[in-house]
């Protein structure tokens, strides 16, 4: 993984000093609430329902075991013993005290971490494929490019006061596991007609109040131009994006109002003028950055599936919670943070420390955060999967549900977030209570449920096969259900099935949707495919045919 040099280390330490001074001036009354808000937001600090919320950047979701131990220590020392992993591969703490935040940042700086640009109207953490570098059919590992973009975007003097937040995702495989089509900019590593690797660039995707799928701005960009092309997009957006209305300020609204052709024309015109003056990435720099992401010292092992004669629970876990690896004898192992009695994406300090130890023992000391709010040990020997499973299971981290109904994405919701209209954690709990029969869950196969407590869509409900959106109806928590959304390479936005339902009606509503699927599906057909084939109508009819007990 990338390791800081003296410059990187100096920069994060200088940031800590800067923020310490800003916090001091705020507490002394020299900065107003509003002035401090603009400063603290660019440091990941929100003022939430109960306390400040601090979001710490995990660049493209990659952590060393040492870093994960520090995150655990922060949870214990400054928070209430847990952290929440997010859909953008970051971690959030919900209970830090404002006065202690500079100390937290100083602890993070010790292990090459920070909270720079994790909120505010600036370029946010760069996200990527959690299987980067290990998935079999990848064109190229996207992480060196993520790090190049991370550095370029950190403290970018021109783009720190954008009209609105700006999120970039980078992928290097045909499958899109980073939801790049619903990012402000998606960067896909592709092979050009000349055989060279370069980038397909998309812009204008996003969720929130106005969900839009990103569109192609450039089909093939030679790799040395990546940063100048991003500068051109950002400059057009910075100058032309709306600043008069917060809900219309994302780049997706600019792209939509100009149309993709005109937007592209402006970007290309700007790029022509700056491409020879801006930062060019040359071969030596690419090679140097790739050096940080060299494959670990894999053993020469035969490809041997572990003894599947072992107990059923292990077999289910191995099937659902591990993924193919490009090196024979290895698997990528998901650490499920979707235990029925825990809020999705939460991990305790003890769990984080255990996972750090397991990373050292089984996976070259590295851990990844997935955009579906689980953790991943990317390089586990197949022959050690069983003993790893035993330890994970003992710690409640082996719920065998990755990719299934109960592997829900969920925002913190009304319990923590001051923006939310409705709870999401408790709805996840109700769904888990209703659907606890794994034979049934496995029979349903691949299906993703995504839930947001408000239309800001932090839980990505628009692109859930089943999406659940919390809405406020006369002070009560209600839920609007969508079906047919998808976040991958074939991304689509879900359709609303009908009037919203009460909290206690959500599980039965989902059960009725699933009944239609089970009755109507064709062999091998996923829930998403059935919805796409049949449309919303039969699902809607079933849900609203008979009253649902509240």
């Amino acid at each position, binding site marked *: 993984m990338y390791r800081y040099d003296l*410059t990187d280390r*100096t*920069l994060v330490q*200088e*940031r800590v000093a*800067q923020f310490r001074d*800003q916090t001091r001036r705020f507490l002394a009354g*020299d900065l107003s609430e*509003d*002035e401090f808000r*603009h*400063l603290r937001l660019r440091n990941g600090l929100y003022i939430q329902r109960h306390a400040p919320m601090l979001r710490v950047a995990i660049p493209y979701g990659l952590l060393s075991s040492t870093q994960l131990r520090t995150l655990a220590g922060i949870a214990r020392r400054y928070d209430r013993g847990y952290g929440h992993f997010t859909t953008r591969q970051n971690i959030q703490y919900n209970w830090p005290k404002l006065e202690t935040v500079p100390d937290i940042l100083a602890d993070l700086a010790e292990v090459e971490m920070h909270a720079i640009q994790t909120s505010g*109207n600036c370029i946010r953490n760069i996200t990527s494929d959690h299987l980067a570098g290990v998935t079999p059919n990848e064109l190229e590992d996207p992480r060196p490019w993520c790090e*190049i973009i991370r*550095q*370029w975007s*950190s*403290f*970018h*003097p*021109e*783009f*720190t*006061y*954008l*009209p609105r937040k700006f999120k970039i995702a980078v992928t290097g495989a045909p499958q899109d596991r980073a939801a790049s089509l619903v990012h402000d900019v998606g960067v896909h590593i592709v092979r050009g007609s000349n055989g060279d690797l370069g980038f397909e660039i998309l812009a204008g995707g996003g969720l929130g109040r106005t969900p839009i799928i990103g569109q192609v701005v450039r089909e093939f960009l030679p790799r040395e131009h990546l*940063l100048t092309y991003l500068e051109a997009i950002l*400059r057009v957006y*910075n*100058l032309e994006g709306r*600043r008069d209305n917060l809900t219309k300020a994302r780049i997706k609204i600019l792209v939509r109002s100009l149309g993709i052709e005109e937007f592209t024309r402006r970007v290309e015109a700007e790029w022509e*003028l*700056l491409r*020879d*003056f*801006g*930062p*060019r*990435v*040359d071969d030596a*720099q690419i090679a*140097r*950055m790739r050096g940080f992401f060299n494959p670990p010292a894999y053993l020469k092992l035969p490809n041997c599936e572990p003894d599947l004669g072992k107990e059923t629970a292990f077999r289910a876990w191995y099937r659902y919670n591990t993924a193919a690896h490009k090196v024979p004898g290895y698997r990528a192992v998901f650490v499920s943070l979707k235990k029925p009695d825990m809020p999705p994406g939460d991990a305790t300090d003890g769990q984080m420390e255990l996972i750090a130890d397991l990373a050292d023992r089984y996976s070259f000391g590295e851990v990844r955060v997935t955009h579906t709010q689980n953790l991943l040990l990317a390089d586990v020997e197949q022959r050690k999967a069983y003993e790893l499973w035993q330890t994970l299971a003992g710690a409640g981290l082996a719920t065998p549900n990755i990719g299934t109904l109960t592997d829900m994405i969920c925002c913190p919701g009304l319990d923590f977030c001051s923006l939310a209209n409705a709870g999401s954690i408790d709805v996840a709990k109700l769904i888990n209570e209703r659907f606890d029969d794994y034979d049934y869950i496995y029979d349903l196969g691949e299906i993703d449920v995504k839930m947001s407590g408000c239309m800001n869509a932090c839980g990505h409900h628009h692109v859930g096969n089943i999406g659940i959106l919390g809405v406020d109806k006369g002070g009560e928590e209600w839920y609007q259900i969508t079906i047919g959304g998808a976040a991958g390479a074939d991304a689509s936005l879900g359709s609303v099935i009908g009037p919203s339902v009460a909290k206690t009606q959500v599980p039965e509503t989902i059960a009725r949707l699933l009944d239609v699927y089970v009755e109507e599906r064709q062999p091998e057909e996923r829930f998403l495919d059935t919805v796409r084939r049949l449309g919303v109508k039969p699902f809607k009819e079933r849900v609203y045919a008979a009253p649902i007990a509240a």
Partner: protein
Amino acid sequence: MPRRLLRDRQIVIDEWRYVAEGAADAGAPLIVSFDQWQMEPDTWIARGCPLGVVLSAAHKIEQLAPDLARFALIAAEFSGPGEGRGYSQARLLRERWNFKGELRATGYVRRDQLFFMARCGFNSFELPEADLEDAHKAFSTFSAAYQPSNDLGLAVKLRRDITASA
């Protein structure tokens, strides 16, 4: 009371007057708004004094470009703490239009913005009096940077190992 501001890292008395601030002595440097300039450029030229122009965030640099040589000063106006167009305006003026005169940040300008403003090419800053004495500290907020830029006189070491300027 004369205005004090930060220019080239020194606190100085501003010799420039905005038109709206009332009649200046004949020959004293004068800052007109871009709209005033566009309406009657000849009137301002006839004054024979050094001219500056103040741009709002919505103005396009391309509109000003043909007249650039007329101005010894360009001020970009920041309407509030979230306004960010001036950063792009500054880079365009310095890098694309090669503007060598005084580039001034006016409006909502606080010490916490100075580092990035300077890196984009601003060299003078209209700060509140309360911020003025301590503002120079902002220029040493960071001692290194990942992006090439055209800051004037900042002691910033560029990380040439990730990106080289062509």
